[in-house]
């Protein structure tokens, strides 16, 4: 289990290699990479800045990871979230879940993202190419995605 908050980009292959190095008990590795899209709310995006709550971010991501390990038999997991200024096409977040079997890895990775989206203290501020912008509103669909897990589905 590991969490990391960084301005630097990440390398998916290197992270998978680090998690699986020297092990032969992992049969399935699922990764999720979130990218900045060039269009948001009908406008062309110029840039985005991610603010977070240092200390709580790491603590909350670790709690989310612990919860995933309690729910699924995971051999390893990783959450990397970038902060600071980002441009369209840039990677924002990486989640990796490794298990003996694929369904646990898929479900745990989806769970980690759903919980991260509603619980990890990050906030996005967008600037459109027309100069307008502001703080991104939370999406109701993210809250319902998290509640799905709480209902045990």
């Amino acid at each position: 289990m590991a969490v990391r908050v960084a301005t630097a980009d990440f390398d998916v292959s290197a992270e998978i290699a680090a998690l699986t190095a020297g092990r032969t008990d992992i049969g399935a590795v699922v990764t999720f990479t979130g990218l900045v899209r060039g269009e948001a709310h009908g406008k062309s995006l110029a840039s985005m800045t991610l603010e977070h709550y240092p200390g709580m971010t790491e603590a909350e991501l670790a709690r989310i990871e612990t919860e995933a390990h309690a729910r699924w038999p995971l051999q390893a997991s990783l959450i990397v979230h970038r902060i600071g200024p980002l441009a369209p096409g840039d990677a924002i977040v990486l989640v990796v879940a490794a298990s003996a079997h694929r369904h646990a890895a898929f479900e745990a990775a989806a769970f980690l993202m759903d919980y991260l989206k509603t619980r990890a203290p990050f906030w996005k501020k967008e600037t459109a190419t027309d100069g307008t912008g502001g703080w991104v509103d939370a999406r109701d669909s993210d809250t319902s995605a998290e509640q799905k897990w709480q209902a045990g589905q």
Partner: protein
Amino acid sequence: MTIRLLYFAWVREKLGRSEEIVTLPPEITRVDALMAWLAGRDDVHADVFGRPGVIRAAIDQVHAQPSASIAGAREIAFFPPVTGG
């Protein structure tokens, strides 16, 4: 009770500060009471803290409901719903 308050995203921007140390009157024992007390400061604070459900709180870096007790807390953060990922 002396406590550290932290503000993030548009809460921070509207208040014009990212943190402050405050001394609370003894009758302020829950998150919602603290928000009502902050809302009474001035119009800007009323705009930020006077609409329940719009902003979220964390006590000592753990998400907290409006009804949560703030007894013994070292830091309380206020922020909009999170939008990372």
